[in-house]
C-alpha cells in the first residue's frame, strides 16, 4: 500500500475583501462576488513567500507522519512563484525541515498544478521502491494584474504531503494525468504579471481538461461519483469547481469540505492540495476522496485516495486547515497596504 502518511497546510493571516479591490477599480463588487462565488482572499505578508509557507506546511506534515525528516528521500515544491529563477525552493525547504543531505530535490512548475505534480512524482518514486518517503508541496504567492479579474482571486497558501508505504493514512489507489497544449493562461519570462485568454480559460481549457482527466480516472478505477465521500477540484474561483463537479455527477455536499476558494481565493499550486488537507482533517476511515487538479497550459492530475484507520491518530497532531482559514487572528487590509505587500508599487531604482 502506498499513500499519504502525513499532510499539512499553511494559510497566512492577512485578507482582502472583494469590495476593497472593486472600489479602487470602479467595478461592481456584488456582481464579482456572485460571478466568482468569492468574498475575500488571503494575502501573504512581505516576509512570507512560497518557501516560508512550504516550510510551515511541511513541518505540520512531518508532525502528522511522525517520521524522522532524514528519512525523506525527495522534496518537490511546485509553484508558479518560486522566489528564485535559478535555485530550487526545495533546497531551502529541505534544509529547514532537516531532510538534507541525502535527498532528491527539484522544483516543479505547471501553472496551478505544479503542486499535484510534486505529489504525483513523490508518490511514484515511493511506489517504485526508490525512496522510503517523498514529499510533494504545492505553494504559491500568486499575482493578479491590478484591475484584472484575476486580482480578485490570486492568493497565497501551501500544502505538503508525505508519501510512504508505512503508516499510510490515505491510500493512493489510482492516478491519471491528462495533458494537452492549450494556451489559456501563461507568463513569459521577466513578465511580472501573467496573461490569459479571458473566456477561453473556461470551457476549452479548465472544463475540458478536468473532464478529460476525471472521466479517465473513473473509468480506470471502475468507480462512480456516488462511491466517494469527498471530491475536490482545482478552484480558481468558487464557481468553476462546483460547476465541473456537478457536470461529472458529484454533489455540493461531497465538495463543500474541500471548497475553500470563497474565503481563501485561488492559491494556484496550493488550490486543490490545500482543499485535500481540509478534507483529511475531518475524513473517516474508509472514506474515498476524488481529487483532480488543473494547471493552465494545460493539464490535470487526478488521484483517488481511500482513508485508512490511522487517520484518526494524526488529524489533531497539527493545525487544521479551516482553523487557519477562519482564524481569529485574520487581518483585513486596505488596497494600499495590499499593493505594498504584493510589491505592486514601483519603487525607486526599478
Amino acid at each position, binding site marked *: 500500500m502506498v499513500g499519504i502518511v502525513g499532510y499539512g497546510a499553511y494559510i497566512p493571516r492577512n485578507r482582502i475583501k472583494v469590495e476593497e479591490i472593486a472600489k479602487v477599480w470602479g467595478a461592481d463588487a456584488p456582481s464579482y462576488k456572485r460571478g466568482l462565488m468569492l468574498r475575500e482572499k488571503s494575502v501573504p505578508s512581505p516576509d512570507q513567500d512560497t518557501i*516560508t509557507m512550504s516550510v510551515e506546511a511541511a513541518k505540520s506534515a512531518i508532525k502528522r507522519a511522525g517520521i524522522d525528516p532524514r528519512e525523506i528521500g525527495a522534496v518537490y515544491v511546485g509553484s508558479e512563484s518560486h522566489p528564485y529563477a535559478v535555485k530550487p525552493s526545495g533546497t531551502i525547504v529541505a534544509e529547514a525541515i532537516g531532510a538534507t543531505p541525502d535527498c532528491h530535490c527539484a522544483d516543479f512548475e505547471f501553472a496551478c498544478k505544479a503542486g499535484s505534480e510534486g505529489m504525483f512524482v513523490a508518490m511514484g518514486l515511493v511506489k517504485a521502491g526508490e525512496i522510503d518517503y517523498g514529499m510533494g508541496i504545492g505553494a504559491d504567492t500568486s499575482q493578479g494584474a491590478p484591475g484584472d479579474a484575476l486580482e480578485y482571486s490570486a492568493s497565497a497558501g501551501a500544502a505538503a504531503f508525505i508519501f510512504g508505504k508505512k503508516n499510510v493514512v490515505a491510500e493512493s489507489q489510482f492516478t491519471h494525468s491528462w495533458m494537452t497544449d492549450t494556451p489559456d493562461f501563461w507568463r513569459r519570462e521577466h513578465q511580472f504579471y501573467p496573461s490569459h485568454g479571458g473566456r477561453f480559460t473556461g470551457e476549452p481549457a479548465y472544463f475540458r481538461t478536468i473532464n478529460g482527466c476525471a472521466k479517465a480516472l473513473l473509468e480506470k478505477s471502475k468507480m462512480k461519483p456516488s462511491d466517494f465521500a469527498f471530491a475536490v477540484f482545482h478552484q480558481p474561483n468558487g464557481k468553476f469547481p462546483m460547476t465541473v463537479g456537478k457536470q461529472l455527477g458529484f454533489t455540493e455536499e461531497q465538495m463543500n469540505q474541500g471548497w475553500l476558494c470563497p474565503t481563501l481565493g485561488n492559491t494556484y499550486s496550493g488550490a486543490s492540495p490545500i482543499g485535500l488537507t481540509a478534507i483529511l482533517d475531518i475524513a473517516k476511515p474508509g472514506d474515498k476522496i476524488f481529487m483532480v487538479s488543473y494547471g493552465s497550459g494545460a493539464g490535470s492530475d487526478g488521484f483517488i485516495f481511500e482513508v485508512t484507520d490511522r487517520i484518526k491518530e494524526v488529524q489533531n497532531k497539527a493545525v487544521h486547515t479551516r482553523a487557519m482559514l477562519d482564524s481569529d487572528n485574520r*487581518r483585513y487590509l486596505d488596497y494600499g497596504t495590499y499593493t505594498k505587500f504584493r510589491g505592486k508599487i514601483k519603487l525607486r531604482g526599478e
Partner: protein
Amino acid sequence: MSAPKYWREIPQRYRFEAARCKKCSKVLFPPRLICPACKSREFEKTRINEKGTVETFTIIRIAPTGFTDEAPYPVGIVDVGDGVRVLCQIADCDPENLKIGMKVRLEFRKIQQEGHAGVINYGYKCVPE
C-alpha cells in the same frame, strides 16, 4: 550579505541547532567552542525549543537599511526555556496586542532580501500562539 556568512548560520536560523554542555547541561545558542559556565569543551547536539514567552519588546519605527519598507515592526526577546533567550521580530501581531508575558512560537520567515539580485535571507520570527 556575503554568501558564506549567510550559509554558515543556516543550522541555527533554519533548524534552531544548539549545543548542550556535556558537563553542566547548559544550552548554548549558537553553539560555541567552550562552555562559559563550566569551561568544558565537550558538547552534544540539541535544539532550542520553538515555543516561548516574550520577556520584553519594542516597535522599531526608524529602521535600518534593508528593513525600511517594513517599519514599523515589533522586535522582542523571547524566553524559550532551558535558560535560552532569543531576539527576533514578532510577526502576525497587531501593536496593541503586544504584551510582556505573551506566548509565542518560532516560525520560518523571510528576514531580508538584497534588492532584486541578492541572496534571500531566511530565518525565524515569532508569532502569537
